[in-house]
């Protein structure tokens, strides 16, 4: 699989699998709704990227993909260990923004 398409797919499923975990950790309804919105955005980013051929060799896309993968590792750690849901949502928001930047960059190429 192309690296950036794989990264976007992985981001969607990482966020999706975080929903039951954060629910179990006692996230508020507002926090869960925020997470759901981010999941929808990540899903949209992935499907938009799927429907467009990503230029994985573009340096900007490569850099963004690396950055997103790094953020996703932080998310995994935060969901598992931090217990601070607000912090987790901040990390997720940042990662999804990077995903959106990747898709926007690919569309412009």
């Amino acid at each position: 699989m192309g690296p950036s398409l794989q990264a976007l797919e992985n981001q969607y499923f990482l966020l999706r699998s975080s929903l039951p975990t954060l629910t179990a950790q006692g996230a508020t309804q507002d926090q869960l709704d925020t997470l759901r919105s981010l999941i929808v955005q990540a899903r949209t980013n992935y499907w938009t990227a799927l429907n467009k051929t990503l230029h994985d060799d573009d340096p900007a896309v490569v850099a963004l993909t690396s950055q997103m993968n790094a953020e996703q590792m932080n998310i995994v750690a935060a969901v598992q260990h931090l217990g601070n849901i607000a912090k987790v949502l901040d990390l997720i928001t940042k990662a999804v923004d990077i995903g959106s930047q990747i898709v926007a960059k690919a569309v412009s190429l």
Partner: protein
Amino acid sequence: MTFHRSAASVLVLAVLGLSSCKVSDDAIAASQQMTATAECLRDYYAALERSVTDTIALFELDSAISGIPYGDNDRKLQETTLAELRQREAMAEELAELAASMTALSNPKMAGSTADSATKLGKELVSVKALPSGSPVPDALGKAGNFLIQIAQQHEEKKAAKAMDDTLSAVAALFAQEKNAYDTMADTHDRQASQVAMDIMDKNGVDPTPMLSPALKPFGLTATPPSAALQASLKQLAKDRLKGQTAQATRREEAASTAMVDSLNEMSKRVHALATDNKMPVRGEPTSLKQVKEWVESLGAAFI
């Protein structure tokens, strides 16, 4: 379908560089192999369409269970992909029909119908777009399509050999270029199904009774409706098996798409050999087709 296949035979003969009325054994073999390969390609695309259709159903289910919104705008993305896959399936079907014709040879009465068949395929090839707004389809695909239309209309048989050669190469290039996208479609389906299944398990909505059959079936025993305690004790095992099966499903599809690339490249080489040397001694369809067929069949029972 029969009409198109018999009518296309004249073109196939010309395509394979034969100037006489007799069909060589090599040309017949190539035709059979091309037909099998193109039909397998058609079936691969059809399976992928079912996968995407099923994914839509999974997103709807997920929305109902987990509250993640899924509306018309979301669905349009998958429907766009489906439309492109259907076009590719149609292209593969036309290729199979054209390749299947090795019967009515140089029958002048077939010329017009042959032209129709070639024109139809040619138009499919020209109209295939990349996955929405994606990279351009290989130029050769469109050129091959135009070529087929041209030679069918002008009966320039000598040029037809190169057209078919270029057509197969272009179809192979298109598939290879889009393989990553195909793999990810299938992977998304498998992972989405797995995620929804896990959520249903967490809500105690899954009956684990079938898991007990290795212990009960040898003795002709039947399980009673599982207690909450039994459900809880089997839940982790069920989830672990689900993860393993999901990973296995992904690997199988990736192996199938790799096998499809190999098959198309192999057929492209064989047709090129026949078109340039008038010889193609290989018999039997590409062996890699078997893996594609197994994957397509394995999905048969998996979809709703």
